[in-house]
């Protein structure tokens, strides 16, 4: 009888371990793509991260929401940053259903002066903004002012975000 109990206890334990592994393995990796203050030289994170579900995205970007919803946005996270205590910027991370949605947004609205940059799967930079995609994530980083070093500073921050995705 004792042997019988031990056998069933071992079986139950194995099932629990297998189930635990299966559940853990199925969980999506929870990612915080926003570098903390000081993680990237001279950049400070100046706001809490705000997260919008697709149905609430209009609260953040009004009519812009539609193009992201059409491309399969799931959630949008945003946070403010400041460079050297002066240059203000915002980082938006759009998590799409799949990489094609991120690609669709990236390709929309590019202008002739877009400079291709090595970021994620594809990316472009302008004097005041950097946009790139990595997997199902689409990242847009915008500075509110045009300064001589804005683009380099934004690219540094973008690499910090990319590393966390």
């Amino acid at each position: 009888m004792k042997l019988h109990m031990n056998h069933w206890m071992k079986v139950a334990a194995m099932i629990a371990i297998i189930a635990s592994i299966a559940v853990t393995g199925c969980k999506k990796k929870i990612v915080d793509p926003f570098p903390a203050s000081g993680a990237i030289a001279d950049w400070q994170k100046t706001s809490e991260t705000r997260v919008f579900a697709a149905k609430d995205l209009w609260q953040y970007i009004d009519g812009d929401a539609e193009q992201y919803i059409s491309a399969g946005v799931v959630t949008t996270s945003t946070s403010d940053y400041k460079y050297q205590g002066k240059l203000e910027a915002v980082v938006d991370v759009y998590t799409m259903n799949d990489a094609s949605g991120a690609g669709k947004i990236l390709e929309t609205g590019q202008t002739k002066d877009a400079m291709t940059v090595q970021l994620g799967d594809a990316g472009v930079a302008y004097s005041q903004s950097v946009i790139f995609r990595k997997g199902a994530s689409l990242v847009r980083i915008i500075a509110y002012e045009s300064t001589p070093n804005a683009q380099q500073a934004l690219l540094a921050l973008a690499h910090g975000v990319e590393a966390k995705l």
Partner: protein
Amino acid sequence: MSNRRDFLKSAATGAVLLGSQSQLGLAAIVDKHADASKPKVVIARDAALHGTDGQLDEKRVADLLDRAIATYTSHDKPVDSWKHIVPVGKVIGLKVNGLGGKGISTHLALILAVCERLQQAGVKPGEIIVWDRNERDIQACGLTINTDPSRIRVFGSDVSGYEDAQDSFGSAKIKLSKILTRECAMVINLPILKDHSMAGVTFSMKNMYGVVDRPSDLHGTGCNPAIADLNCIPAIREKVRFTIGDAIASVYQGGPGFHPEHLWHPNALIVGEDRVAVDHTAWQIIERKRAEVGLPTLEAANRPPRYITTAADATHQLGTNDPQRFRLAEV
């Protein structure tokens, strides 16, 4: 107030009309035989509004505002002009637009200039409310929240709340901000000119999406007829009487959000009572810029601002989109 409104409609007789001074190339659409009974739209422009360092010159913004209002009212002195625009002893709302974030929101310099002129015209600080949807939008305009009634109040509809009862006109079934319904006797509309991914153009009439509880419900079919319907809601139609449109900076593509790669500086204010004529004029400015940079027309981009035509139709009668039926002055 009706007398003051009448004045605004009739006082523009001596205004400087478009001619060789036109800098935006819109002279061709002006009725050369100006008729004082026609509504009027003024575009005031200052190419040096942004200095060589790219910074906005606040003093020049105030001067530009004075020029726009003086042209509109035919009064040389700004205080005299404003006295004929706003009622005394009533609460005046300034509906700004901070939706696009810090890069493309109603400029603080313009808001402050309007507040200053209102006070010089006899409006007490506590009778002025600067407002938008919420604290974030207000902060995007460079303002901080203040609910102290002894000073100029600055707060959003997230503080005041929305009416419980629904208002409706056509497709617009909404709840209005209590700032509009309960606080303000008159609202001066201070939108910022932008391309809009759905409506085509956002300016005077579209800014009213910021006075309702669920603007997301009004975005179908290019926001048409929703924008026109919304502006026919009595509280909006009757209280929002004057537009001082911010075209100091604008985005000609990618709006309504801030896309610095599509940012440009028209360095202008667009002023008028006829919200349809104002929006029609703003649309032409966006189209000219798009053509200049080689972008297709909004019609070709499949997002013409059809709501402007709808707003002028017999059902809505919000104003005119016929350039022959309004006077355009550019100074």
